[in-house]
């Protein structure tokens, strides 16, 4: 054992360099998370198994991708965010501030987002956008529907997990939130099925991170519901921004805190506008094709 002290001083890499290195480290920890690995494997298997199979409506297929990459991704980032909590007395007195560490954790969402993009490409490859299972939407709106059902939940779920991990101490919070969101989407989908013409029900259906835009019935083919898939995409992205900002708010001080609160207000207004436009746009009544 050596007891001599080397004249060591940190090779200080400021700001961006530290952030990139930390984000890369967190990504490495995230990709080996068993929950996330399971989500990726099951999504890949589900997508591959569904190739060449006729689907009744696309939402039923895409919900699984949202559940696995989005929901399980949320649980994985929640765990990742909480994993250093026990070491807070040490981690908390390092030069990297809590918001900077949170930002590095948010950057991890690039991984499930990338997986979501690959899942989207695979889905479009196996289920062409001209398939009747998409409903009566225009070709561009069909892309917006699948992007909103596959890609954005894959990004938003993990970001929500980081925000939750920063603010909630309860270890099972991510699982509880996952069940609440799943129950909410199920509930509003059932209500939408029985009240497809109702504008308030359409708002409730769109007031979620994931929604169904079309429903297949054995009697009348695929019915496309009210609402604009493009503005719904905007609403989802605004929710993602809110999740990031809420996560960053923890431990933010001074001018940074003020800026985050200001940005939160802007994102909140943007989300509200997008929700209203999503509910008001698109089909004004259910269209069955």
């Amino acid at each position, binding site marked *: *054992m*050596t*007891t*001599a*002290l*080397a*004249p*060591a*001083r*940190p*090779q*200080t*890499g*400021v700001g961006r*360099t*530290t952030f990139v*290195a*930390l984000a890369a*480290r967190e990504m490495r920890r995230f990709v080996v998370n068993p929950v996330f690995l399971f989500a990726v494997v099951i999504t890949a298997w589900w997508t591959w198994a569904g190739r060449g199979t006729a689907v009744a409506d696309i939402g039923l297929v895409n919900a699984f991708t949202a559940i696995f990459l989005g929901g399980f991704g949320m649980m994985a980032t929640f765990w990742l965010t909480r*994993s*250093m*909590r*026990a*070491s*807070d*007395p*040490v*981690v*908390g*007195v*390092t*030069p*990297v*501030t809590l918001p900077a*560490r949170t930002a590095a954790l948010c950057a991890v969402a690039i991984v499930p987002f990338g997986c979501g993009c690959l899942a989207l490409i695979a889905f479009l490859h196996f289920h062409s956008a001209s398939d009747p299972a998409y409903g009566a939407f225009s070709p561009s709106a069909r892309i917006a529907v699948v992007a909103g059902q596959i890609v954005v939940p894959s990004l938003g779920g993990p970001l929500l997990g980081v925000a939750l991990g920063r603010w909630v101490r309860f270890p099972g919070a991510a699982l509880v939130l996952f069940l609440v969101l799943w129950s909410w989407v199920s509930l509003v989908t059932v209500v939408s099925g029985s009240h497809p013409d109702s504008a308030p029900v359409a708002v409730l259906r769109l007031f979620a991170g994931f929604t169904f835009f079309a429903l297949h019935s054995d009697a009348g083919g695929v019915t496309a519901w009210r609402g604009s898939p493009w503005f719904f995409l905007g609403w989802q992205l605004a929710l993602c921004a809110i999740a990031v900002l809420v996560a960053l708010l923890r431990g933010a*001080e*001074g001018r940074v805190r003020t800026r985050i609160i200001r940005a939160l207000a802007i994102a909140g207004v943007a989300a509200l506008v997008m929700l209203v436009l999503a509910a008001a746009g698109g089909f004004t009544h259910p269209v069955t094709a």
Partner: protein
Amino acid sequence: MVTASISLRGVGRTFGATRALAGVDLDLKPGVTGLLGPNGAGKTTLLRLLATALPPTQGRVSVLGLDPEVPAERTNIRRQLGYQPQEVGFPRGFTAFAFVDYIALLKEWTEPAARHAEVRRVLDLVGLSDLGAKRIRAMSGGQRRRVALAQALLGSPAVLILDEPTTGVDPEQRVTLRTVLAELARTSIVVLSTHQTEDVAALCERVIVLERGRVRYDGPVTELTGQAAGRVWLADEPDPAAKVSWRTGTGRYRNVGARMRDDVEHVEPSLEDAYLLLRGGSPEHEVAS
């Protein structure tokens, strides 16, 4: 050349209705300063203040000429700070190397080769070079404390704050750690809190005794020990005149009393004797066997 220093002026800290520190004035220069005091005396609170983990509710703290209340200055302090808290939790699945490496990254060691070399160096300093690949959860309590100490030693910081660093560490390692800390204290401010008076006697040139959040003694270790000269004696029975008595390994009783006595067999006082004398033995006369 500017000498590194820490100063506290009228520093107080309350937790709700509990006053942990009150009116603390201190100046700390390079060297090892020991912090003694009973449980609940405010030692950990004082160390957390010095480590910028906690702001004071009264008074001013200056570390290396910087104000920890100002976020940018606090970050600069943290760049030159090593802190080993009393209790450190470790993330699940981390090896000793991975944990110290993660903290090194948070201390802005972004260049991998330099960072890994530094991590190996500090693990070697605490005698864990062979256990770097071992999971921390599988380590003994003493080994875990050494992992916590290793991260504090990263970059040979200008300010090293250690809260009971030798608890659970075997005697051989304690001697080695004393050597490491003594070497570091040539240029750095080292403050260590401990219940092991022999560590303070062996390592510190200065000792601060806290009691109920106030500084009871602040001065050289030799001076405090000297205060007990002529007040420690051996006898066959516990002496009613002594403040504290305990049975030693020889079967005789070591007595520590407030008044000088000539008619007894005096022995060389230790820092522990002086500390007990300063504290008045304990709230009441105490005989330990």
